[in-house]
């Protein structure tokens, strides 16, 4: 048996994945259910010559991570809902400065303080739209401890390749859960480094925001002699203020998006289960996809033709994949179980168009979705009791307001 066989939590796997991917700087602020990531990083980073700092708040920690990344170091930050809200402005800063970094959000349930240790997927739309000004973003969602490791490596790689912050949208189930994992020899991992200037400092004109056909500008590090600006204001290719130049402004925002969307195949990761003859397809991501797959297996035993599309990449959204499913002649409905009041379902609906009904299976009490509850919804669908329009009201609300 390999000595790399370990029993570890999703949070530990994220930290180990980060170290393996070359992350050498972490700044954070304690918050459940993400704190373990900071604790492991504080122990592991100095062992490999990296640096850890616990900052005074979440705003400071993401700002420090941005600063570290600008010196050429792979850098990461981890938090949960309240901290994710605080980081919003500086997440946009990372987008604008085109600073590679990974921000992990181990999601917990509810607005404000909510319930600190219980899982949810309530921040997936915030991941997309949570900072102002029409930004671009990549977000990934792991469904197991092992995948938490691999998607962290992937997140670091994507952030470097595209000079962009990448969000790893974990949740309290994945973060706390312990599973048996077999970690690879880090030397076998394919690691990506940010594109670099093609000439040494002083040997040509370096344009920190001038991109070739990849749309990703080469990135110098502070201290190398290039004397460049990382500028949060609209800027031209030199990094100079372009706040009075609307064409430059328009081009920059286009490029920030296009550098990701034009490379969709390199970013998009989905998995399909039992889709070929499926009548009902579940769209799921993160921890919920485990219940969804269990539901598929149980349904198949009962002769129900259930399939699953699992999105590992949440943003950009897997619209083409959903559309293809919606157009399959057998498919009667798509159902979207989520640990929230129905967020990604709006994207699924938009991608599916008028081809099939898209039914939300919202779940937001801080527990996981059981396969049985998904199967019950499918049963109701076949009996004509569950449509897109069905109002799904929680038990207590029925007792208090509708009886």
């Amino acid at each position: 048996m390999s000595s790399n066989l370990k029993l570890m939590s999703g949070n530990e796997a994220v930290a180990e994945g980060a170290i393996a991917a070359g992350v050498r700087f972490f700044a954070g602020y304690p918050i459940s259910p993400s704190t373990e990531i900071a604790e492991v990083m504080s122990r592991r980073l100095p062992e490999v010559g990296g640096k850890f700092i616990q900052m005074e708040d979440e705003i400071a920690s993401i700002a420090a991570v941005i600063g570290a990344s600008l010196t050429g170091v792979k850098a990461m930050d981890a938090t949960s809902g309240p901290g994710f809200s605080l980081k919003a402005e500086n997440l946009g800063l990372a987008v604008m400065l085109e600073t590679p970094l990974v921000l992990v959000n181990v999601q917990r349930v509810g607005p404000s303080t909510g319930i600190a240790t219980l899982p949810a997927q309530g921040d997936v739309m915030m991941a997309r739209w949570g900072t102002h000004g029409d930004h671009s973003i990549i977000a990934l969602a792991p469904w197991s401890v092992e995948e938490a490791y691999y998607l962290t490596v992937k997140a670091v790689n994507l952030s470097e390749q595209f000079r962009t912050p990448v969000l790893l949208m974990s949740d309290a189930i994945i973060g706390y859960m312990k599973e048996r994992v077999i970690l690879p020899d880090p030397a076998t991992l394919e690691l990506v480094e940010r594109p670099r200037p093609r000439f040494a400092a002083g040997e040509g004109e370096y344009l920190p925001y001038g991109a070739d056909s990849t749309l990703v500008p080469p990135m110098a590090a502070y201290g190398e002699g290039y004397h460049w600006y990382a500028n949060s204001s609209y800027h031209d290719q030199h990094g100079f203020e372009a706040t009075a130049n609307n064409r430059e402004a328009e081009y920059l925002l286009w490029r920030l998006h296009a550098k990701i969307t034009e490379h969709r195949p390199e970013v998009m990761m989905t998995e399909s289960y039992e889709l070929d003859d499926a009548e009902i397809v579940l769209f799921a991501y993160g921890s919920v996809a485990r219940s969804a797959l269990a539901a598929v297996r149980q349904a198949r035993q009962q002769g129900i033709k259930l399939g699953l599309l699992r999105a590992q990449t949440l943003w950009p959204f897997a619209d083409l994949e959903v559309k293809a499913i919606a157009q399959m002649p057998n498919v009667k409905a798509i159902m979207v179980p989520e640990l929230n009041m129905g967020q990604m379902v709006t994207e699924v609906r938009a991608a599916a168009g008028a081809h099939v009904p898209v039914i939300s299976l919202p779940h937001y009490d801080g527990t996981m979705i059981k396969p049985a509850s998904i199967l019950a919804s499918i049963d109701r669908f076949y009996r004509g009791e569950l449509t897109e329009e069905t109002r799904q009201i929680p038990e207590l609300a029925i007792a208090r307001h509708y009886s």
Partner: protein
Amino acid sequence: MPAIEMLQTEEMKKRYLRTEGLNSLWCPGCGIGTISGAIVRAVENLGLSQDEVVIVTGIGCSGLIYNYLNFDGFHGTHGRALAAATGIKIANPKLKVIIPMGDGDCAAIGGNHFIQAARRNIDLTAIVINNQTYGMTGGQYSPLSPHDSKHTTATLGHIEEPFDLCRLAAGAGASYVARSTAFHVHQMVDLFSNAIAHPGFSVVEVMSQCHVHYGKRNYSEVASEMLFWYKDHALNVNRASKMSEEEIGDRFITGELVNRIRPEWTAEYEKIIAKAQARSAEEKARQDVLHREKEFDKQSQPEHQGDEG
């Protein structure tokens, strides 16, 4: 001061200024230009390489300094310059990180980062450009606005008392603290040089005229008159130390106020790295012994295990 003559040469301008960026975004007569010049002179005085200096700014009129100076530069979010600078310094301790900030940037939205950086004593140089108001947004009060001063958000007079920023920094643990004004250029260059050379968190507060938004409501809309006001109201710390509070009156104390050595963050962290690596080497050695013992046990085990049922 030879440095000042030196800067007036074309060569100095060419080296340190970004002429491409030079359609000045500052109002004519603004103190920030003078302060930018003093930063460059301090760098030149210290004989620093241009490659090792990073200018980190937040948002505000003072946050535009990066646009004109020929170093690596950072223009981030309002109030967070010190937090970003902390990441830069930790990730590459060889860099000299200079952080010009406005009084709002530093003491209001960035106030917590300011005192925490001072407490950590991380080797950064904060230059706080105190124009006693929010310049960029047009003259609202800041945490450094004097009692009863007039602002667009306090037209009847400001009811709060300001921080004494230098005392705040000293109390929070900054190991170098000084104050100057946009009038006292020679002193400012010296203090900047000392601050940048100092191994720890250093703060220089510079009183600087915003005649356009602050002066016109409070003293004078003429830049030179405000500069003369600074000249008359600055009191050197050496003289002040021999005077009573009453004698000092409404004058502000300039010069070097704190200069002490405290453990510095990045140097302390090097020790953590050494300790962590020693710990993991020990752990690995222990694991190796265990592994060898296990192997040995395996080899010396009898062939038929579990005979006892």
